């Protein structure tokens, strides 16, 4: 029993990483209805920017805010420069550009900052919480993830621009007919996703260390979490991300043949199973519609 609780708690801690990434993935999916393969690399690049600021002696939280702001602007620029022109292009064009962005950010980071593994500081200090089950950083990461989620909820639920973004994503043609600048709403979605990715990167880097390939497997888990949660719901993304972390941990402990090497396939298998039963994911929106 005690082992079970331990495994769940530490699963939640890793799951918070995936939840953070899943949130960023859901943001872009809402705006352009595609999964952005370059999302992890964008987050990694943002984290390097933060690392550079810290190396220049900028205090942690100032570097944090600057990085989030720069990433927000960067996301908007990418949308305006590249994806705006692809709005009506076939899916494959998007995929190709995502892969290109992936490669560009990856090699650019390697070129500027080289491929050496770098430590990245945690703002939450070191030590142990809950009898050694969780580090302060893991606890801090969970709090930050929930904070981002709460901010998103308030933004989309209670602000006019949040409502405009939801309308533009759900029905672009009608959104234009009420005067919403749909293109800018999409750009804003990219900016927000990129900013959330930066937060995720800065939270993840102290755990996995900073290097250009740090996000590759995390992005897969993030996708899994986002899909499990239903792709349309930020709450679902967080729950999905946490669930993936827990499943991964439990499978590693309780299924004898599953060592650390098989954790990923098992987690993905469970997700496929869930999706077969509930194609819209755990919290995916079922639109009730009458015609």
């Amino acid at each position: 029993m005690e082992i079970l609780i331990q495994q769940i708690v530490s699963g939640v801690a890793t799951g918070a990483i995936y939840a953070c990434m899943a949130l960023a993935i859901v943001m872009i999916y809402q705006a352009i209805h595609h999964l952005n393969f370059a999302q992890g690399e964008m987050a990694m690049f943002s984290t390097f920017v933060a690392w550079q600021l810290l190396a220049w002696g900028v205090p942690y939280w100032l570097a944090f805010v600057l990085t989030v702001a720069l990433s927000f602007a960067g996301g908007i620029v990418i949308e305006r420069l590249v994806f705006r022109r692809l709005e009506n292009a076939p899916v494959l064009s998007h995929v190709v550009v995502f892969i290109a962005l992936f490669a560009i950010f990856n090699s650019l980071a390697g070129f500027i900052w080289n491929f050496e593994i770098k430590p990245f500081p945690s703002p939450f200090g070191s030590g142990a919480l809950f009898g050694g089950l969780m580090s302060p950083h893991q606890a801090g990461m969970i709090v930050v993830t929930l904070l981002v989620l709460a901010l998103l909820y308030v933004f989309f639920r209670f602000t006019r621009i949040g409502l405009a973004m939801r309308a533009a994503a759900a029905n672009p043609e009608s959104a234009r007919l009420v005067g919403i600048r749909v293109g800018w709403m999409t750009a804003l979605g990219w900016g927000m996703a990129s900013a959330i990715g930066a937060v995720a990167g800065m939270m993840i880097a102290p755990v996995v260390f900073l290097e250009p390939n740090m996000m590759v497997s995390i992005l897969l888990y993030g996708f899994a979490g986002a899909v499990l949660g239903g792709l349309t719901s930020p709450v679902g993304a967080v729950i999905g991300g946490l669930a993936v972390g827990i499943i991964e941990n439990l499978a590693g402990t309780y299924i004898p043949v599953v060592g650390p090497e098989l954790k990923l396939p098992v987690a993905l298998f469970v997700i496929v199973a869930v999706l077969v039963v509930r194609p819209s994911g755990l919290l995916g929106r079922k639109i009730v519609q009458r015609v």
Partner: protein
Amino acid sequence: MKPLLSVRGLEASYGDLKVLRGLDFTIAEGGVTALLGANGAGKTTTLRALCGMIPRSGEVEFDGRPISRARTEDIVRLGIAHVPEGRGTFFNLTVEENLELGAMSRPARREVADDVARIYGYFPRLKERRRQQAGTLSGGEQQMLAIGRALMLRPRLMLLDEPSFGLAPLVVEEVFRILAHVRETMKVSMLLVEQNANFALSLADHAYLLETGEIAVAGSAEEIRNDESIRNAYLGY
């Protein structure tokens, strides 16, 4: 008096199929103009071309401003509200959010609440269902919602694509009463596309009959209503 909207040589195509072949017409400020015609004549296409939802050519001036190259969002922001064919409901948002969206391009927040209350006055059914997902409304209720959403813009010109579509006869009367009231109190001009020529001509001052992308007949609503040969040839009653 200078017309509110003037259209010269409006053309639009879907692929190789030319659907509008050079329309010329005007809409007077404060007036209701009916656009009638058989299925497939190009009425919906005309409205979509006017507010830039499809590629078009020709000259369109709204209140002296050329809008034939403007984008939909910008045209709407000039005060042209479109009640589209198919109603354009935001299915997964609530009824009230749908209405608030209609005022999205207007700055003042407080007036928005007043306007929502006014729309609920016109359509009490919407008030009862204000927190409900708009996709769960019946077809007729969605039509009311679409009209309400357009009014939330406080438009100067409304483009109405078959507002009576899917409504029970009593509700159609009600909707036309509301449109007449809106026209009086809010000084809204209207371009009204209708299958229900009787209702349309009773509200309109002026009418155009569209036949395969060309204007076949133009005249005052009264002339057209009273001209038996036109009625027989184009309106089928």
